């Protein structure tokens, strides 16, 4: 178990290294000159050369890569070219917002997905199953940014125009209201939750639709097995069989889903953060890429890659906990 963990960690580190190396090459081979950000508009060739030398951009690519890599591994992530703040500061401000959003939506995705998948599998080939299948298929086909815009249209604009009750009306952007500072602690909490509602609804709806499709199949595979019939025959209730016998065994493939769904979740987050002006990593990254803020691009890439690797690692570990046969014999 420990050896497996060590190996997987080493592999994960390798993957992160590959990702940042590829990104570094792409960023540095791309047309465009980052030194332009450091000279005043209209500056001549001489000023540009000076800036390039000062930034170290005149050195060969390999030298730049190695010096960047050593600095990066030592925790010196440089200064954001656009925000003129240390990159670590920028990340430290943004990361919690993204983790709150993705964490909450992952939780809802699992709870909702399992519930919907179970209902569908136990009402197999009924109107409820068909209806839910069609619904999940359509929601799963929706681009996150479009669903987000549609939710804003309904729960912010239409709700305001037609005077819907306050609990059906949600703010369309940001993390807090402008006057949040003056609210009571409870008021501030409610304010935050209301701001979280629409971004979370977007990500969770798509997540639930995707995982329910998967869980329905996994449950159907297990449901017909002999031990389930035995459990029913000995008089266990429907719900007990569903939760204790079927779900437990169907959960194995679902755990794999956790690792596999992370990249999709993060790309969904990027779009959702852009739409809802949510000051998380995705927005920081899109802004950085747009503004050619190279240090921030590198840092956000590294962090997203690390999050994906950690997610996969976690899924692997959970898998070998849930099924002891796995892990001991694997390679």
């Amino acid at each position, binding site marked *: 178990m420990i050896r497996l963990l060590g190996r997987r960690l080493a592999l994960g580190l390798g993957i992160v290294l590959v990702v940042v190396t590829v990104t570094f090459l792409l960023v540095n081979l*791309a047309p465009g000159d980052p030194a332009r950000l450091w000279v005043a508009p209209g500056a001549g060739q001489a000023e540009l050369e000076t800036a390039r030398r000062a930034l170290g951009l005149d050195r060969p690519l390999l030298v730049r890569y190695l010096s960047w890599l050593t600095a990066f591994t030592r925790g010196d992530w440089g200064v954001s070219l656009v925000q003129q703040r240390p990159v670590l500061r920028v990340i430290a401000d943004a990361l919690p917002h993204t983790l709150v959003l993705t964490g909450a939506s992952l939780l809802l995705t699992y709870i909702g997905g399992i519930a919907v998948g179970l209902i569908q599998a136990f009402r197999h080939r009924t109107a409820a199953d068909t209806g839910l299948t069609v619904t999940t298929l359509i929601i799963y*086909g929706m681009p996150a940014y479009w669903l987000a815009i549609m939710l804003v249209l309904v729960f912010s604009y239409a709700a305001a125009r037609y005077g819907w009750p306050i609990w059906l009306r949600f703010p369309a952007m940001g993390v807090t209201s402008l006057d949040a500072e003056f609210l009571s602690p409870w008021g501030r909490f409610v304010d935050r939750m209301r701001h979280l509602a629409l971004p979370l609804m977007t990500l969770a709806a798509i997540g639930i639709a995707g995982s329910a499709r998967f869980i329905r199949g996994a449950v159907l595979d297990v449901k017909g097995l002999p031990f389930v019939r035995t459990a029913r025959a000995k008089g266990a209730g429907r719900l007990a069989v569903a939760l204790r016998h079927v779900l437990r065994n169907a959960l194995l493939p679902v755990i794999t889903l956790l690792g596999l769904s992370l990249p999709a979740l993060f*790309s969904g987050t990027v779009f959702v953060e852009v739409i809802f002006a949510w000051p998380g990593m995705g927005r920081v990254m899109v802004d950085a890429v747009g503004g050619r803020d190279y240090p921030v691009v590198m840092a956000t890439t590294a962090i997203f890659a690390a999050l994906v690797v950690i997610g996969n690692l976690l899924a692997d570990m959970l898998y070998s906990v849930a099924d002891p046969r796995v892990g001991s014999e694997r390679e």
Partner: protein
Amino acid sequence: MSSIKALWGDRRAAAGLLILAALCVLGILAPLIAPADPVVQADVLRTRFLPPFAVGPDGTLHLLGTDRFGRDVLSRLVYGARISLAVGLLSVAVSVGLGTAIGLVSAYAGGLVERGLMSLTDAALAMPRLVLLLALVTLWEPSLILVVLVLGCTGWMGIARLTRAEVKGLMGRPFVAAARATGLGDFRLLQRHLLPNALTPVLVAAALGVGNAIMLEAGLSFLGLGIPPPSPSWGNMIAGGRDALVNAPWIVTFPGIMVVLAVVGCNLLGDGARDALDPTAR
């Protein structure tokens, strides 16, 4: 051609095929279907933000309204189908080419080559695709070819794994040994016997991949990094309509519905095909 019949027999696959065929016809016949030119704008002040079913000053009926430059939304949707379908199909063609090649070679060669190629696949699989796409497309000049290449080169991993697993399974079968006994070379064996037999799951994955690629293209265009305007793409139509969300919600709504239709069509076809073409399916 029994597989086509089997596909047609599956309700989902048939529905998916119908949806995709309809979208293809829409794209191919765009000049005949579109009531107006998708790019040219007329008298902006009098033609912009016309709601659905409005009749413009020149007497043309705008079935789905007009956008903020007075361009007919329906016409742009129809022309946008060309871009979305082209990007989806071409980029998946690139992924299938890359993926089957890598999968075939690694399964057939075995040993160190296989280990190396599969580690490469695992590393590529762990890369956050959108991050890579964003970095590539923003830093280089966006164009149709770049989007296709980038989507294709970041989507081959699943197909490589599938192909490898399929081919590995086939290699132990007697017909492969028989073919080899007749003196067939490596290339002929791969081309005539292994590839065709491994193709079914690859095609299923490809169908699902097309939907994914269409969604990603729309996403990139939405961020302003995909197909550059004024070419109509569903993604950049959604992006363009966002500014007028309150006054002209139809500009955003319809292209989104088109994306959903295309993706649902691909997913239906993929899911249906998996069950219809798999002899061991329940």
